[in-house]
């Protein structure tokens, strides 16, 4: 049992009622954080994208339209909840929860505060209890992230399948294919990070990056895994330019076409919650999470501030990408995923791994990098050749 909850010092003194209450309160605060975050994120996205399109955006409900999401939510709750005749009722009703739950659960492993720099161990002491500023720090940390993002695929897939309608089904097929494809690249770029930190725990990953910006994983892993993770995460989130899942022109609404009322609202919620969670994960894995210089004032506020700043930067970047890039074609999506991102992340993983081995064995690093690049190039040429041959064969079959 102790091993399951890992290193969080909260559990070092065994379990009592106080600890259980503390955990419940932490979970509630985490949930509130995410929900409020989603409400603000939807507003933020709508406002920024309208700015980028020379519009004004929501400005009716509350100051600067801040309460627009709340108004939409209330409206959705009171709308009629329809379900198609052909729907598989149980699965149809289960699917929205399958979308929302993983989004929140993933956020649980993100450290949102705690002083890591200057020898800090990222803990806070409140009411006589010392704990990490994250809802949970399981030793399987990052694996939990990958598991949850796979469960989220079920939410989308089951929603489309159980609707008993063609557009949702097509959307769901696309969604599952896309999310499964990009999960591989996502996982491989995470492995690079794990190689450096030597731990799956998000707390350890942050602690390992805390000493300075050069230790942040996006520098330490030489940018490529970071870039791959960002692209794959965008695809995983079904956000533009990878939003083929809900390509309106082709699929009406995609997997959630048949959903209405708050069930639709939950998919919407999950989508934005996932955006926040993924940004938080990127910040944690590659940008040192809450680590950053501690200025004057209460020192526990600074890590939270740095985390929020980094998170906002990514949320803004996601909106910016959405405002800029047009949607991918389906074959381009698959090409990018399978023929570029996966080989590249795999090659980079091997490079980083061989560098680790080189350090252990005392080999010349430059020689290792040189050989690795040579091998990588050879592999790339082989693969391009294979793709070319496959293309020629396909044309021959077609002709």
């Amino acid at each position, binding site marked *: 049992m102790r091993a399951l909850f890992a290193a969080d010092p909260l559990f070092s003194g065994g379990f009592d009622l106080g600890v259980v209450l503390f955990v419940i309160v932490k979970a509630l605060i985490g949930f509130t954080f995410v929900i409020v975050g989603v409400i603000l994120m939807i507003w933020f996205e709508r406002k920024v994208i309208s*700015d*980028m399109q*020379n*519009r*004004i955006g929501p*400005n009716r409900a509350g100051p600067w339209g801040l309460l627009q999401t709340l108004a939409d939510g209330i409206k959705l709750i009171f709308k009629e909840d329809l379900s198609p005749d052909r729907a598989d009722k149980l699965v149809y009703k289960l699917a929205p929860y399958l979308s929302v739950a993983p989004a929140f659960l993933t956020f649980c492993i993100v450290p949102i505060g705690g002083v890591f720099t200057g020898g800090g161990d990222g803990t806070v002491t409140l009411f006589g209890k010392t704990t990490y500023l994250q809802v949970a720090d399981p030793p399987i940390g990052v694996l939990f992230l990958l598991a949850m993002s796979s469960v989220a695929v079920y939410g989308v897939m089951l929603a489309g399948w159980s609707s008993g309608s063609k557009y949702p089904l097509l959307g769901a097929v696309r969604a599952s294919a896309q999310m499964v494809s990009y999960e591989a690249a996502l996982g491989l770029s995470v492995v690079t990070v794990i190689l450096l930190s030597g731990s799956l725990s998000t707390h350890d990953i942050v602690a390992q990056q805390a000493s300075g910006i050069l230790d942040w994983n996006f520098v330490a892993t030489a940018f490529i895994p970071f870039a791959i993770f960002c692209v794959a995460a965008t695809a995983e989130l079904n956000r533009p330019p990878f939003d083929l899942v809900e390509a309106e022109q082709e699929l009406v609404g995609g997997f959630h076409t048949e959903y209405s009322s708050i069930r639709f609202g939950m998919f919407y919620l999950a989508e934005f919650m996932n955006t926040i969670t993924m940004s938080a994960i990127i910040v944690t894995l590659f940008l040192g999470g809450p680590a950053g210089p501690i200025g004057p004032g209460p020192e526990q506020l600074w890590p939270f501030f740095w985390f929020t700043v980094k998170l906002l930067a990514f949320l803004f970047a996601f909106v910016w990408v959405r405002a*800029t890039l047009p949607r991918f074609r389906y074959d381009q999506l698959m090409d990018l995923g399978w023929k570029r991102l996966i080989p590249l992340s795999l090659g980079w993983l091997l490079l980083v791994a061989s560098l680790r081995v080189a350090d252990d064995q005392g080999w010349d690093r430059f020689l290792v990098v040189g050989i690795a690049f040579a091998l990588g190039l050879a592999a790339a040429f082989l693969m391009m050749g294979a793709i070319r041959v496959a293309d020629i064969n396909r044309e021959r079959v077609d002709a």
Partner: protein
Amino acid sequence: MGLLDYFKGFAVPFKVMFERRVTTEYPKVKRAKAVRHHGRHVLSRYEDGMEKCIGCELCAGVCPARCIYVRGADNDPDDPMSPGERYGFVYEINYLRCIHCDLCVEACPTEAITESKLFEFSFTNRQDAIYTKTELVVGDDGRPQQLPWEDWRDGDDVHTSAWMRATSASGSAAYTGRVSWSGELGYGVRSAEPVQRDADDDEPAVDDISIEPHDAGLGGTDHDHDHSGGSH
């Protein structure tokens, strides 16, 4: 194409963020209406309070939407409604059908029917959509009546309640191309607009169009040629 060219596209929406918004926040702010904006009709009256409509039904005949219904009646010689022999006994416009083409205004021989600039009137039932003579005739001050569901703004009734003639007024060649006005209740006779030839030039127009909308005093500058609406 360099690698950085891929990112040029990202600069475009970012730049737009700092551009000036062109949106008019409509219910709060309203854009100025065009001088010859076609809005809801009014039935004008002469300066002595007589109605201009003579019930000739030309407007109803010309209306492409068939939204005007007119029935004329003979004037009581002792208490005439209009200076002519007949007057508009019934005058109805169905605003669910009207397309505001202004053909009725052009057809009217006595300049009785004109269009104001008001277009924001949201009645909530079909009965309210049919404006009868009671609603269409201007009040004793010459201003259009304001019904509860109509959103009149400043200037909506300015320069609209009189009939404009782009062609020669009274057939005089000297006034060809000059837009002039007929005398009417509450507004008197306005001075004519500058001819288009003048307006297009940079030189200042001969006579300006500065008009006090409620200056009931008669301008009289071009009164002598501007009483084709019927003398009385």
